[in-house]
């Protein structure tokens, strides 16, 4: 394999692995902060014990998130040197700003939060975790501004062999980036609230700390319902933005081969990439794809065949990942509605089947989040910066395929060990009845 091919696999491994930890950090920091605030306001010790229980899981998860995050910053220079040279003028800025305004705040205040339960006032301690939550969110904003620029490059000018920044305002005002921020944050809240509900359900089944875990479950359920509906709103906004700015990605989402007005959305279909058509199409909604793309049943959707073959993304992976992600998104709404209804009526203990499913449902938002990134990044191919720079022209020239193979093996081994250690600790602390 080539340096480029191996580097792409390596980036997929390290980015997808890192993103196993990011959404829980984003979501659980807010949930823990909310619980601690309730404790400060009400003086109810249950909320304090809740904050400590969920906070401990947050910390274990956070540690791996931090160390695997450094990898990504190193990756751009190590494996994508041509990319870094080409876009460093623009792409480097949000990365450096992310470190300066968000990472320092996040990492300094998390250290403070862990060790200052008895050193600062109750109120100050709750404020500290809000700072951590705020800083995590801020870092998500900056990294997605960077990613948003790769999806929809704005505010730049071409100068010789590189792109240079011409408008910082356009860079940070990129609509694509802010839709990504919204979609990602909501997805993270879905993930964290399913995490809280799943572990609470595990304990409720065993009658551990029923009051504490019922309260936790309720908080999770309300957040899950709100965020799972909003994540679909965010998905819809993304679809429209993709249709406008990344037509090849949209066509791959829907396996739309021919340009059509009033394009039909098929609930069941499967692309045949060799023959450039679909094996079958069933249960059509006339104008559905047109509506999803442009919010207009009669609009024209460009098909894949209207683009040169070397400008199209891998259709099968993009299509299947997209479909599965969307399906999971609707499943989250359904499960959240049940969770809200049962927990608000106080009938959770009678719905043991539901409590039995929820611990397993923890894994589904993880899957959906990973699929989201697969859709976003593979759907953007063959471009590393959409319409501007091809992935094939972006990898480092100073390294050999052997170098990358060695590092890829290293990452797989080390990350597997990290995953094992993390899973061991998370399971241990999740099963432990709070003190």
């Amino acid at each position: 394999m080539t340096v480029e091919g191996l580097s792409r696999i390596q980036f997929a491994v390290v980015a997808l692995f890192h993103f196993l930890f990011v959404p829980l950090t984003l979501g659980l920091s807010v949930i823990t902060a909310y619980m601690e605030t309730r404790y400060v306001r009400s003086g109810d010790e249950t909320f304090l014990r809740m904050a400590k229980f969920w906070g401990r899981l947050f910390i274990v998860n956070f540690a791996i998130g931090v160390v695997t995050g450094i990898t990504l910053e190193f990756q751009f220079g190590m494996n994508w040197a041509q990319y870094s040279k080409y876009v460093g003028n623009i792409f480097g800025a949000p990365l450096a700003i992310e470190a300066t305004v968000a990472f320092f705040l996040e990492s300094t205040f998390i250290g403070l939060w862990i060790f200052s339960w008895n050193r600062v006032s109750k109120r100050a301690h709750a404020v500290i975790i809000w700072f951590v939550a705020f800083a995590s969110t801020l870092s998500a904003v900056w990294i997605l501004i960077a990613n948003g620029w790769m999806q929809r490059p704005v505010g730049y000018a071409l100068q010789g062999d590189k792109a240079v920044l011409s408008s910082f305002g356009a860079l940070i005002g990129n609509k694509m980036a802010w839709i990504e921020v919204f979609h990602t944050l909501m997805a993270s809240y879905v993930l964290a609230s399913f995490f809280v509900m799943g572990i609470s359900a595990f304990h409720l089944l065993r009658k551990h700390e029923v009051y504490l875990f019922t309260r936790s479950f309720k908080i999770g359920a309300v957040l899950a319902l709100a965020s799972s509906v909003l994540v679909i709103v965010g998905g819809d906004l993304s679809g429209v933005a993709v249709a406008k700015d990344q037509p090849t990605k949209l066509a791959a989402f829907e396996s739309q081969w021919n340009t059509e007005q009033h394009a039909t959305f098929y609930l069941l279909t499967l692309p045949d990439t060799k023959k450039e058509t679909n094996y079958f199409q069933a249960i059509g909604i006339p104008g559905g794809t047109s509506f999803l793309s442009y919010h207009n049943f009669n609009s024209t959707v460009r098909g894949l065949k209207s683009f040169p073959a070397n400008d199209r993304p891998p259709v099968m992976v993009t299509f299947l990942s997209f479909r599965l992600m969307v399906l999971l998104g609707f499943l989250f709404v359904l499960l959240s509605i049940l969770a809200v209804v049962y927990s608000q009526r106080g009938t959770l203990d009678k719905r043991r089947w539901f409590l039995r499913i929820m611990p397993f449902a923890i894994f589904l938002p993880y899957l959906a989040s990973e699929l989201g990134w697969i859709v976003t990044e593979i759907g953007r191919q063959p471009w590393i910066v959409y319409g501007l720079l091809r992935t094939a022209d972006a990898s480092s020239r100073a390294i050999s395929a052997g170098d990358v193979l060695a590092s890829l093996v290293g990452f797989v081994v080390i990350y597997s060990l990290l995953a094992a250690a993390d899973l061991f600790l998370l399971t241990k602390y999740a099963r432990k009845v709070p003190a």
Partner: protein
Amino acid sequence: MGLQILWFILWGLLWAVYFMLDGFDLGSGILRNFLAKDDTERRIILHSIGPVWDGNEVWLITAGGATFAAFPATYASMFSFLYIPMLIILFSLIGRGVAVEFRNKDERQGWKSLWDWVMMVCSLVASFMFGLVFGNVFRGLSIGANGYEGTFGDLLNYYGLLTGLLFVAMFIVHGMLWVAVKTDGELSERAYKRAGAFWYALLVIAVLFLVANAFATKLYDNFLGHPVWIIVPALAVLCLLAVKLFLARGNDVEAFFASAATIVLVTFTGVIGLYPNLIPSRTDAAFSLTAFNSSSGHYTLTVMTIVAAIFVPIVIVYQILVYRLYRKRITREEVAEGSEFY
């Protein structure tokens, strides 16, 4: 022009501050297993860096990010030309960070020993590799018309290895002084003595390094051209001597700050010697990556300057506040019974 020079200085400063801060985390990590007599002492040392190591490491991420934003071509070259050392640094920092956070999350002896071992090896390897990388940057890389023309083996030259040893020795002394300052009783005294013993090793390596600079690098050209800058290496030497002086007098806090200053001044001796290069070419000066030919455009540098001017002072203020909050020496009793400790 002005902004490029400003960012060249900031580039050096960010790395120097990173080495100064993470230097004591790494240094105490290297010797921790040998310094501590029992599990409680191991926990005390871990706890001394626990609340701050992560914030310290962000200086590295910022140094990397600033290099990316201000000098994209240097960032791309530094990380891809030095692929293997950078990879080893990355793996070591991952191991070190996880070891700190996970070591006391389970009571089993095997689990603790595993992470103690990981922490020691990773701290040592990261320290050495940072030295190896910067030694080779000071020395220059084989950059030709087609980019990097050297191999990983070329990096293992005597000067690179010597700089690796220099970093290990600097960080060990720094880390031992940190432990001496942050703990009390026997452990503090033991760390204090180790710092004194390793200081001699550091002195020998530092002298060799200063001599080797003249033969293996062109760092001294700038000092010969502009003798006023000799004040920086001179101060570095003075600070190194001051470490021993303070140690002899029993002033551990002053010795620690002298050691911190030594690290910053040693880094800046290299940075001043490099100017205007960030990475000199050994093949032909025309291929050197400089503050002028590898920088971002004026507009990006202006944006970055504004961001740095606003946020870096804020970061420094709250990091100092956190260090102040934890300024008390950690006692054996509080770690033995406290649940808030590593």
